[in-house]
């Protein structure tokens, strides 16, 4: 090969190299610059933008949360709030992703079962410190979710979980509202026999194992039971829990539970009830809006959870909260706290709880029952007659604890695993996690 050819070849190949490499670099650079614009808070004219991620907006009447946020922005003209909304399950994934990648939203909705994990990972801020720093009087807060003595989440709205009953189906089956477990078994059987619907439904899918604290453990708490020892250790193998599981197994074996429960998610369960395919479910008051919206004609009411035969003590009423917290690494702690303060203020908090059919997190707000859904008024009485119970809140790896329980429960239901064996397996695994 002569030198002329070679030089031409190298020249050519160099220009090719340049062209091709430019494509690659260009693609990468374009990516970086566009991303850069995205990540930045955008403070061009002294404005601060904070992100508020929660699953509340889809569950509230249209525009309710946006309206409150607008009010906040009017009161604080230098703060923009970007609402990041999504369904509960995806919000959780997003928050985990954010905490792992250091891109947490500034302010975020928190479920009680997440708090311990996020707090120990150092991804959510210690609100006790924050409140001290900004001189906030926390006596107006109804509750605070604490880890090692410090608050990390503030309940904004609390939702009780009573028993929802489809009145039409009950009438069709000629059944009365059950008050004890044995009456419940009987009523569920009556409904299953006399109608096309099932008696009861539990959503035990493992994607979101929270069916354990929504559909199963409330039975335990309603009869004064617990799943913890006096000093907060696990006691999944105690007699109360055992009896509760045996009760669920009885329902399952009698065939009165809606089919498909083992892979159902919470929304499937509510769907079953809303469409009249099941007569009774344990569910959140947050669902009143939704049931009314999707099935305006459905005649339903809420009643206290049935208790163990002969139990006369007070009932634990399962509740869940929409908690609020902030990122430990937010660049705008002051603005973030302002938003939290606003949401916890008497006016905003009262309004939000009213929209959501929940009980306000601000202790000074009394729920306004005059315009409330009549079902909500009944629920308020149930709430006041009992004591609040939510044993999973604040536990380490709470979702994992529920998953362990759920798996064993599925073995009990579907494969007749002895309850003793299943519960000691749960207890053993829980002990490892605590």
């Amino acid at each position: 090969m002569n030198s002329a050819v070679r030089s031409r070849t190298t020249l050519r190949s160099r220009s090719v190299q340049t062209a091709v490499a430019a494509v690659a670099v260009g693609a990468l650079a374009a990516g970086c610059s566009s991303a850069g614009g995205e990540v930045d808070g955008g403070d061009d004219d002294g404005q601060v933008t904070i992100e508020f991620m929660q699953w509340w907006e889809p569950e509230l009447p249209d525009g309710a949360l946006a309206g409150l946020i607008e009010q906040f922005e009017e009161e604080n003209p230098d703060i923009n709030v970007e609402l990041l909304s999504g369904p509960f399950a995806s919000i959780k994934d997003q928050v985990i992703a954010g905490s792992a990648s250091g891109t947490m939203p500034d302010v975020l909705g928190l479920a009680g079962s997440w708090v311990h994990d996020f707090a120990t990972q150092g991804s959510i801020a210690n609100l006790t410190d924050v409140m001290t720093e900004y001189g906030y009087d926390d006596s107006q807060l109804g509750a605070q979710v604490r880890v090692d003595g410090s608050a990390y989440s503030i309940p904004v709205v609390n939702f009780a979980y009573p028993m929802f009953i489809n009145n039409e189906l009950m009438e069709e089956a000629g059944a009365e509202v059950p008050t004890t477990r044995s009456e419940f078994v009987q009523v569920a059987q009556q409904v299953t026999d006399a109608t096309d619907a099932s008696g009861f439904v539990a959503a035990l899918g493992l994607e979101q194992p929270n069916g354990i604290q929504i559909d199963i453990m409330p039975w335990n708490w309603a009869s004064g039971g617990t799943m913890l020892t006096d000093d907060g250790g696990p006691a999944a193998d105690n007699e109360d829990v055992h009896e509760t599981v045996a009760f669920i197994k009885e329902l399952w074996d009698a065939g009165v539970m809606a089919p498909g429960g083992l892979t159902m998610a919470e929304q499937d369960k509510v769907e079953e009830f809303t469409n009249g395919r099941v007569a009774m479910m344990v569910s959140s008051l947050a669902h009143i809006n939704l049931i009314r919206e999707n099935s305006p004609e459905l005649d339903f009411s809420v009643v206290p959870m049935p208790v163990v035969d002969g139990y006369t003590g007070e009932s634990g009423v399962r509740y869940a909260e929409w908690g609020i917290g902030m990122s430990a690494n937010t660049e705008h702690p002051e603005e973030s706290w302002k938003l939290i303060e606003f949401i916890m203020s008497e006016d905003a908090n009262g309004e939000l709880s009213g929209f959501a059919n929940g009980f306000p997190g601000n202790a000074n707000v009394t729920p306004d029952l005059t315009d409330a859904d009549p079902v909500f008024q009944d629920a308020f009485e149930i709430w006041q007659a009992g004591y609040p119970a939510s044993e999973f809140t604040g536990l380490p790896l709470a979702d994992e604890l529920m998953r362990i329980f759920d798996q064993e429960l599925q073995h009990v239901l579907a494969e007749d695993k002895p309850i003793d064996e299943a519960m000691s397996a749960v207890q053993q695994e829980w002990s490892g996690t605590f």
Partner: protein
Amino acid sequence: MTSLRHSRGNAATAYAYLSPTLVLLAVLMALPIGMVIWYSLQNNVITNANPQLVGLQHYIDILADSQFHAALRNTTVFVLASVGAHLVLGLAFATLLNTPLLPNRIKTVFRTIFVLPWLLTVAIVAILWRLILNPSGVFNYVLTTVGVLDAPKEWLGDPALALFAVTLMNIWYGYPFFMVSLLAGLQGISADLYEAASVDGAGPIRRFASITVPQLRPIIISMTLLDLIWTSHQFALIWMSTGGGPLDRTELLSTYTYKLAFSQYMFSTASASAVFFLLISALLAYAYVRHQKARD
């Protein structure tokens, strides 16, 4: 020319053409794989600022985990059943679509219908089949009305049926890929071969067995290997229909790994599981590469 093609300058040119590919693969493939291996040797990565090295501990944990065994078992069943059915259905439909008996326009209509499932998003497939397979859904209704079933079944909720149900979903979703490739192959087979066979007195079945299948063999083998790899990666279909349940009956390696990382935050253990998964896929890749090499 030949000498020019082997010259150094030409090698440089070839590398230049390959450079964007190599940069992308290095940054977005080699580096992450290195990272995941590194994660798998430590404890509490990502969630903890100061992870410690723990060597192969996570691999030992994974191998001892009965859930992992279940995932391995389910993945095997799911993949073999899916790929087998994809092959059979794909070949059957491709042969039907290649018929000389119908005008092209009609065949185009059928071809489009046959391909439809493949054109849907996995997310849609999962949701659609959840609706169809619901205990009070249309599938049960049709089967009970026709008399195939006495009572509605919980296709996705019954531990005994769930793996079958998700496999069915995947069969429906995945066969068109085979079909399209095989159809392309069938159209490439020279009609002279069939004519010669016919003259020799071979019937349709003989012709199928002695011409069609041998001619399609290379495509069938490549497609089967590719489909084995891709089916074993399936995640969204399972995640959005059963989430791996009931019990662990539809847990696959992909959902198992995902859950470890994003439900239980055990990123190190998840990484170890991901590396196992990678090794298994690498075996299939090895077979595929050898096959491709043999063809070249």
